[in-house]
């Protein structure tokens, strides 16, 4: 009996990610079988999922999941497109309030919103800049020339003799940008959100 309780506590700790070393090994071994250990661990995970979100209260059908996994394994690997092709726009429309009939759909909308931010990052920017020491280099690698060790100065487009736009970095503009952000936010919006935005966003190295 005590053994049972101990085993369950061990599994509970395993599900919470609290085990290390030998205890972890032992718990894993116990839960890896087809017996009670495995079922209990599944149950603990389900409990955890439900606590986190009621959407997860329906466990996936294991038969279906394994079929899906097999099918996916047989799919030929396609290389991902290196460039996003389709810009997604978030239009501002007065949302017709959907009475949260479908929270998961709403979550997809959120994801789509984030995706559109990301898509905008990859497309439709004639020029851009990261605002912190390479803070956004990851998203810029493909699009902005990142000078080695550059202090993430604003990237500006300069028209050259043929009217072509050329990207350059100009640290001098940092100072003017910072001055604008610091002293140029007079709007009512700017208190506090704007001040916070500017203070949060302020160019470094000043």
């Amino acid at each position, binding site marked *: 009996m005590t053994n049972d309780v101990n085993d369950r506590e061990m599994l509970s700790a395993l599900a919470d990610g609290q085990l290390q070393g030998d205890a972890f090994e032992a718990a894993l071994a116990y839960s890896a079988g087809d017996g009670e250990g495995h079922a209990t661990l599944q149950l603990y995970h389900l409990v955890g999922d439900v606590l986190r979100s009621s959407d997860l209260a329906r466990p996936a059908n294991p038969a279906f999941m394994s079929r899906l996994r097999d099918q996916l394994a047989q799919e030929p690997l396609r290389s991902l497109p290196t460039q996003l092709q389709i810009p997604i726009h978030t239009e501002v429309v007065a949302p017709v309030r959907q009475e949260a009939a479908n929270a998961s759909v709403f979550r997809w909308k959120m994801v789509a919103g984030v995706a559109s931010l990301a898509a905008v990052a990859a497309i439709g920017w004639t020029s851009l800049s990261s605002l912190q020491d390479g*803070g956004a280099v990851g998203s810029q690698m493909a699009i902005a020339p990142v000078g080695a060790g550059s202090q993430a100065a604003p990237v500006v487009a300069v028209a050259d003799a043929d009217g072509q736009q050329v990207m350059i970095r100009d640290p001098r503009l940092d100072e003017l940008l910072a001055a604008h952000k610091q002293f140029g936010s007079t709007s009512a919006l700017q208190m506090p959100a704007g001040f916070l935005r500017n203070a*949060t966003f302020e160019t470094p190295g000043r």
Partner: protein
Amino acid sequence: MPPADAALVSVDVVRDVAQWIERMHSAPCLRPYAGTFVVLAANGAMSSSRIWHACDGQQQMERVESLSGTPRTIFRRNDEVRTFLPQARIVRADRREDAGLFPRVPVVSGTSIAQFYTARLLGQERVAGFVTDVVWFKPVDSLRFGYRLWSERETGLIVKLQTLGADGRVLEQAAFSELDLNASVRVEQLSRMMDATVGYKIVAPVVVKTSAHAEGWTLRQPVAGFVPVSCHRRSVSDAEDAPSVLQCLYSDGLASVSLFVEPFDAKRHPSKPQVSGMGATQLLAQHVQPDVWVTAVGEVPLQTLRLFVGQLERAR
């Protein structure tokens, strides 16, 4: 001053732009708060900071500690700003000569926000654990961006703010990811920290108040809705002998534009115009005369900056 029980009324109050702004502006002093604030630009750049805010009868105080980029802590006491840079052991002391003066509502005089924006309530959403009114400030023309604001229902505090391009795209988003509207933050605590400058070198850039006219500049035609706010000569660089730059500020009450005017210097300035866009902030730099270089910066569309620069001329 909206009563706190406004939130208990389930009917949506119809407010115009000015009423929304007044409500949002008086919000910060209703409760001391602390939170984490995240700014995300459309190009993927992201910054975050930790915020503490408190008011008493006379003072509004804010502490903003950067969590990304260069470590720095910015304190604001009414219009006084100090930026602590612990790595360089420097404190920059500045005055914001703007509308943050507590408790006056900071509407730029001479602007008419209602003329250039309309407000529309879009519904309610939860942000950072709070129920908020989602409000859309729609610009009437293409010279300014639109805004979507999430205003906490009980206090009116802005907990999320999106700047929207002409096509409705989100250019920049700033929001509390986590917020405590009952934090034990007190003005005197923050004040003590702000004054703890021992061991730091205090740098106070020289600023001279002036006017565009006194500097010999004028706008041929005002740009719709934007009124002159102030002009200063300041040194924007931390270098010892940096030349001062003239900064003139214009605002329509929500958006603001800075015009920086300096003598053209072939060593520092390119010969061709420069344009740049970062999130909501656009930048345009070019000659206005063979010997004068102007840089326009603002949270407005690029065409608005072009208008500004095009209207700038020597005063007779």
